[in-house]
C-alpha cells in the first residue's frame, strides 16, 4: 500500500523564479493538504484541496497556488520566489474533507532552497 509520495525530493531555485511541486495521495485518500515547514519549526498550513477545488487556505500570499487532478494528485505552485520561501514543503492526504476520525498522513516532503 503506497503512502503519500512527493516529487522532487530536493530543488534549488533562484529568487524570482517559479516552482511546481507534486504530490500523490495515499491509496484511498481523496483530500490533499499542503504545509510549509521552516527549519526548526512546526508545519504551517498552506491550503487544502478536495474535489478539485481549494477548500481552505492559510495565511499565505497569492503567490502560492495549487491544483488537484481527477485522480486526486495535487500540485503546489509558487511564483516570484523569495529567499524566505526556502523550506520543506509537505503534502498530507486524508479520506474526506473533515478530519475528525481520519488523521492526515504525510509524505517526506520536497526540500526547496532559494539562492
Amino acid at each position: 500500500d503506497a503512502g503519500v509520495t512527493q516529487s522532487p525530493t530536493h530543488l534549488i531555485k533562484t529568487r524570482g523564479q517559479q516552482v511546481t511541486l507534486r504530490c500523490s495521495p495515499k491509496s484511498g485518500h481523496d483530500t490533499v493538504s499542503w504545509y510549509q515547514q521552516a527549519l526548526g519549526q512546526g508545519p504551517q498550513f498552506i491550503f487544502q484541496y478536495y474535489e478539485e477545488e481549494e477548500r481552505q487556505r492559510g495565511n499565505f500570499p497569492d503567490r502560492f497556488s495549487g491544483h488537484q487532478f481527477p485522480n486526486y494528485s495535487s500540485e503546489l505552485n509558487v511564483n516570484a520566489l523569495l529567499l524566505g520561501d526556502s523550506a520543506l514543503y509537505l503534502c498530507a492526504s486524508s479520506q474526506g474533507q473533515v478530519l475528525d476520525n481520519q488523521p492526515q498522513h504525510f509524505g517526506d516532503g520536497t526540500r526547496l532552497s532559494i539562492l
Partner: protein
Amino acid sequence: EDQVTQSPEALRLQEGESSSLNCSYTVSGLRGLFWYRQDPGKGPEFLFTLYSAGEEKEKERLKATLTKKESFLHITAPKPEDSATYLCAVLGETSGSRLTFGEGTQLTVNP
C-alpha cells in the same frame, strides 16, 4: 486562533530513562489532538489521535494522555531508536481541516 506550545524544546535522555513531553493548547472546541513523530529529512509519521479529556492511547513505549488544557506524551524506558522530533497538532471547531502544529520537542536518547 488555535495555539499550541510544546515543551521542552529539546530533551536528552539516557537509554531506559523515562520522561514526558508536554503539549499545551488553546482552541475553541477541541475536535482532535494529534501526535506525530518526525525523523530528520522525513515527513511527520502519525502516532495518536485523542479526542476528549481523560482519554489515553498507547503504542509500544509511548503513551499519550489528554486534559482540557494539555496533552502529555510519556516515554517509558526509551531506546536510541526513539530519538526524533515529536510534534503535537490540534484541530478546533472553527479550524475546518486546518491542523495547527507546535514547534516540536527534539528527543535524543543516548545508549
